[in-house]
């Protein structure tokens, strides 16, 4: 009776058996990598805006304080994207004819709001509050990245829950003195570890509650 299989059959069989074992683990590894990729998190993605607003120019160039435009950041959950009138306080004088500012002028003229593209998107079931982070010495750039050097705004961090928890579990490395919260160039000093620990107490940060689900999900 003739052979049913060629000599390769054994090796094939072995490979198949082996891959049955390995495939699941490969799949997990792939998913792991994918979920952290910029493709999924949207980190460092720049979105097209109706007006190519440059934080680099306004913050580093002109030295505007964050709060000049994001006026409610210290009081409210939302930092507040400035109303058109805020833009026009300067731009009624400067670059009054600039092509790129046309949408702003029409907005004011026709009383139609400007539609910006949201850059830092959190899921709707996440209740993030700017004011409390500011109050507890977490600086803008900690989450928004080096805004002062961004010609166009981009999402600086992955914004995954793991990333949030990273700080909520141990805020010490990120706590600044209150005066430095809005400092776009802030870098953690050498003695950040000690300073942070001190501030943890000074700012009455209840880091036991920080990791409660109710802190962000309601």
């Amino acid at each position: 009776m003739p052979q049913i299989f060629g000599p390769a059959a054994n090796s094939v069989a072995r490979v198949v058996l082996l891959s049955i074992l390995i495939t699941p683990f490969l799949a997990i590894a792939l998913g792991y990598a994918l979920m952290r990729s910029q493709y999924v998190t949207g980190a460092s993605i720049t979105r097209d805006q109706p007006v190519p607003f440059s934080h680099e120019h306004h913050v580093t160039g002109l030295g505007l304080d964050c709060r000049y435009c994001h006026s409610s950041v210290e009081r409210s959950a939302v930092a507040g994207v400035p109303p058109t009138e805020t833009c026009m306080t300067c731009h009624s004088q400067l670059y009054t004819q600039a092509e790129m500012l046309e949408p702003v002028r029409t907005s004011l003229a026709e009383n139609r709001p400007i539609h910006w593209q949201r850059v830092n998107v959190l899921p709707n079931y996440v209740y993030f509050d700017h004011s409390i982070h500011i109050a507890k010495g977490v600086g803008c750039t900690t989450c928004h990245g080096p805004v002062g050097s961004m010609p166009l705004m981009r999402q600086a961090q992955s914004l995954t829950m793991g990333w949030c928890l990273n700080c909520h579990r141990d805020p010490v490395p990120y706590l600044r003195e209150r005066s430095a919260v809005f400092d776009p160039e802030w870098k953690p000093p050498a003695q950040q570890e000690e300073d942070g620990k001190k501030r943890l107490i000074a700012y009455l940060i209840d880091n036991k509650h920080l990791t409660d689900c109710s802190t962000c999900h309601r």
Partner: protein
Amino acid sequence: MTAAELDRSDALRWTLPSGRSYEAVNRLVSAPLIERAAWSWRAWWIAFAVSLTFTVIFLIAVAWLFVSGIGIWGVDSTIVWGYAIANYVWWIGIGNAGTLISAMLLLMRQHWRASINRFAEAMTIFAASIAGLFPIMHLGRPLYFYWLTPYPNTMTAWPQWRSALIWDFWAILSYLLFSIIFWYVGLIPDLATLRDRARSRGGQRFYGALALGWRGSARDWHVYHVYQLTMASLAVPLVVSLHSVVGLDFAASLMPGWQETIFPPYFVVGAMYSGFALVVVLAALVRGGFGLQALITPAHFDVMAKILLAASIIMGLSYATEWFSAWYGGGRVDRDLVAYLFTGAYAPLYYAQLFCNVVLPQTFWFPIVRRSIPAVFLIAIAINIGMWLERILIIWMTLSHGFLPSMWRLFQSTIWDWLTMFGSLGLFATMYLIFVRLVPAVSMHEVKKDVIDQEVSA
């Protein structure tokens, strides 16, 4: 075969003369798979058509479930669990039996297992896989079922290890993998036989590939037996743990009628009970369907009936224990619940359950009943119905009649509850028919081994 024939001296042996040789066994079992021409598959096709219809119904029911939500079932604010969980427990119970039978009987050197362990194990795999579907279908958001697994995720969130459902998840998974391996390896020698007997090239390649190069050499057999014994001794504790964990789904709560230490053992027995009952049913069908009267004899039914009888007595004992502990424990709610079992809205179902699971099987005390295949067949079906009732009532009774009277409700079944349930039966039948069509329903090599042993002992 009549009772008269049974009384013949060799009646109680596990094979009839007609099947008492290697060649006979091979021929009897492999004929349907190899000698296509000589064999008529009409009955099979009819059965397949029917079961396929039910499978389609099942798929439609599940699709509609995913489209519109759990609300299509009868579950409500108080009785948040319903058919899905009952079906799950019932199927997993059945899933228990195959491996248990095959492994435990192997360890106990019960030769007669040879004729039934193959399709019993197959039953295990299909039942367990179907059982595995129900907990997922039952989820409010099935697409997130994988959150029950501890995989590295960007939320850095992990499962709740204290939850019986997590234990359950692992129990089912490991049991399913185990059963598949156990069953498949047991199949290898027969696949080799089929490879060698196959007429067509295709058949040879198909079975050849599956046989993984089995040669039947002394070494092959040695490895095989060591392996089989090891697996069998692993199987028994695994099976016991599996359904104990299922029992813990209820016992690890504080609801009256659930929070009982007796649940794990009582669930294991219940599982074996319903599983064995279904084995009997399948045995009768395979025997008739493939003309294996020579290999599956009334003796098999006789001995399986005895096991069912024993199980039914244990079940009765467990029920009685529940009533006693409720009375003895003396908690208001527990007592109310037992009263509710017998007098509440579901009482008729409860009596039906007691009749099917405890009263009816007592007829097995009489040999005449045990050896009448139709009788055993029908009683086995009754037992399976009774066991399903037990599962659904465990859920309905406790949830309908909890701690606060203000939230007492009655369950209202919907058409989708029923379609999903019968659909799952269809799915099982379909898978089973495909199985018997492709691989030998009875383990040839083990029956052959059995034959020699009998020759020797005779």
